[in-house]
């Protein structure tokens, strides 16, 4: 089987398994969804409504049958109605996803672009100031909660200095959250790239290259870059995971009506249809990303020394 086909197969099976888990876990919820729906959507609480909802959701049928029905509906685009707003869940997601995606992807895209040059310079002169600065940044960023940093920057840059306009609807309002995501990923990816690059300098063929007359920079680039890039792209997966998780807090902090803020409110309201959809969307997004990274790595692979 070709690589793309294998990757696709793995992605699809993973997604199916996760959907089963998500459905199972959420079906185990303690409260009665019919009662919640009746209260949430202001429906008349009579026997007819209860019976109607139960049959519509197939609550009296065996687990696998329910799962199959849910999955079929989900794939068709019927993600159910939100308990909290009463609107179709798919519509709610489509409305909010673009903002969150823009934020996360912009931040994630910026990071590798800057990580490569920074990591390269850090490896070029180990213990030089760039190296120490990036190490400090990495420690700082992994330890200090983004929320804390975000608040300080928001107040200083947005309120006091008015250099940025944080709560506007256009790209202006996204500057800070994107910067925060980019900063975190940048710090981590830079260190990964640098570490791998330095590993190369310890290899014998590196000394050979230097002996052949290449400058340190030239040798690093020709022999190390592809290898370090490989490692960095691998680490990118974890960063993407982190970025998805952190959008929730960032959206609350910056008042952005994205999917993260919606999720927090949905959890507060025990809005299970939304939770199910969210798990699926996040899993799909990360699986697709993983698949993309896997393809990328495979393409880079043959050039590994």
């Amino acid at each position, binding site marked *: 089987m070709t690589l793309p086909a294998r990757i696709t197969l793995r992605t699809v099976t993973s997604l199916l398994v996760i959907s089963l888990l998500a459905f199972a876990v959420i079906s185990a919820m303690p*409260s009665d969804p019919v009662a*919640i729906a009746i*209260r949430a*959507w*202001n429906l*008349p609480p009579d026997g007819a409504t209860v019976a109607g909802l139960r049959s519509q959701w197939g609550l009296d049928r065996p687990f696998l049958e329910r799962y199959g029905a849910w999955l079929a509906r989900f794939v068709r685009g019927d993600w159910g109605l939100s308990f909290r*707003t*009463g*609107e179709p869940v798919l519509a*709610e997601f489509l*409305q909010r996803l673009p903002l969150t995606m823009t934020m996360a992807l912009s931040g994630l895209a910026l990071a590798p672009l800057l990580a490569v040059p920074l990591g390269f310079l850090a490896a070029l002169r180990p213990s030089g100031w760039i190296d120490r600065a990036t190490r400090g940044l990495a420690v700082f960023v992994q330890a200090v909660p983004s929320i804390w940093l975000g*608040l300080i920057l*928001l*107040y200083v840059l*947005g*309120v006091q200095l*008015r250099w940025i*306009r*944080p*709560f*506007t*609807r256009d790209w202006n309002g996204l500057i800070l959250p994107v910067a925060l995501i980019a900063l975190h990923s940048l710090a981590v990816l830079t260190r990964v790239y640098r570490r791998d690059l330095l590993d190369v300098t310890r290899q014998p063929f590196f000394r050979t290259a230097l002996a052949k007359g290449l400058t340190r920079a030239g040798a690093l680039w020709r022999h190390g870059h592809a290898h370090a890039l490989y490692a960095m792209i691998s680490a990118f997966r974890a960063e993407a995971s982190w970025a998805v998780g952190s959008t929730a807090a960032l959206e*609350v*902090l*910056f*008042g952005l*009506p994205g999917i993260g*803020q*919606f999720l*927090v*409110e949905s959890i*507060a*309201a*025990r809005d299970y249809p939304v939770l199910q959809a969210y798990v699926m969307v996040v899993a799909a997004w990360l699986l697709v990303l993983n698949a993309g990274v896997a393809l990328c790595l495979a393409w880079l692979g043959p050039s590994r020394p």
Partner: protein
Amino acid sequence: MGTMIRALRASAVVLASVAGFATGAHAADPLRVGAAFITSGLDPAKGSNGWALASHGIGENLFSVDRDGVLVPELAASAERVDELTWRVRLKPGRQFSDGTPVSTEAVSAGLAHTMANNKAALATGGTLRFKAWDPLTIEVTTERPVPLIQALFAEWPMIVYGLKADGGAVFSGPYAVQSFKPDAEIELIANPHFEGAQKRSPVTYRKFADAQALTLALEAGELDLAFGLPAESIARLKNDPELTIQSFPVGYQYLAYLNTRTPALADARVRRAIDLAFDRQQLATAIHGGLPATGAYAPYFPFAGKEARPTDAAKAAALLDEAGWTAGADGKRSREGEALTLTVLAYPQRPDLVAMLPVIKAQLAPLGIAVETKIVENANDVAASGDYDVFLWAQHTAPSGDPAFFLNSTFRTGAGLNFTGYASPDFDAILDGFATESDPAKRAEIAARAQQKLFEDAPVSFLLSPVWHVGLSKALSGYEPWGSDYHVLRADIGESTAAPLD
């Protein structure tokens, strides 16, 4: 020469467009409003949209409550009772919906009937109402249950007035009309051309801020002209900002504590009275940076509110607990027949003041030997309805329609829909029955006073605070005066500084 003429012409064009731009910008700069809530949708019969749409200045009711808490006519002119179950409501002439169609008896009746059929909350006071056109400006309303004051019923938030359009949408009569709506995020409003004063009314961009701190920062960053519902902690700092005006106003919401009469510990009225006496309301007010100790069920600005703050008496509370058999052990903790007195106190995060009060309440009950476990639940209505609590901190607007009966009937009557405490007292119900036949507001106030006195004795609830809310205003809206709690955030008289356009 030719070049100079062309240059002059070009600069003339530029200057004219700049001037035009400036005037245009001046007249049509939208006002930016931020608040913690926004309507869930534009369907007035769904959920609590009716309340939100009126709050956004989009819709109106037949009758409404003014800034002094008095019931006044809005779209209706008057109402007279024909018999026990029939009223005639006369509409004000000449009013139109935002699409130009008249606010006629047919349109109003069709809209209200639609609400009756689709929203349970509309049935609370009078059951299902039926409407008939009596004459071109009068609607005859038949109620299912006798209603002594139909003005109050029509002032309730589900009874928002609207016309039904052919496509199933609704059209409203308020000062603002919807231009665009992004659910759960933002609504763009323009002046309703068929509402008086439209020329002087700027468009409004209304945004929801789920986070109170984000709302505060947006105001400070100059992004908002009106920030509704600022957290009390930020007020001191905001007051120092020369660009902003901060206004604080008392609201109809009351902070109270439901005491579950069905639990073994709280089934004894003495224990409940002891807890009521143990609360130090002044300390609670200090903890949330504002508000007054409650005088009873209603905010002090209502004519039927009590006059004396609820008392605090720790010694009497201790005596009551002793009398009820809860004796203090050597460690100070109370117990009866080997069981310690432990209470679960709940609050919900949608009202941050309640959450802030939880630790203080825990500390206030501790000296009495009562152990407290606190818990925050998001789905407050579900938990309260299930009765799975001992003490529940609650924020409730106790007179939304300007009348004391609604709250008492819906919350403390035996078996009532919102009776979370399990309070069942035939004597109390008998007092409430007086409301059904009395239409004189002064007499109704007397009934309310007697009912509250009974509540003080039986203590299924402890009234804690009459809170104060805060709004922040930029220079553009420095004339805004908040009133009506959050039922009327946007109104006809929003207090815009009317600077003349430059021409």
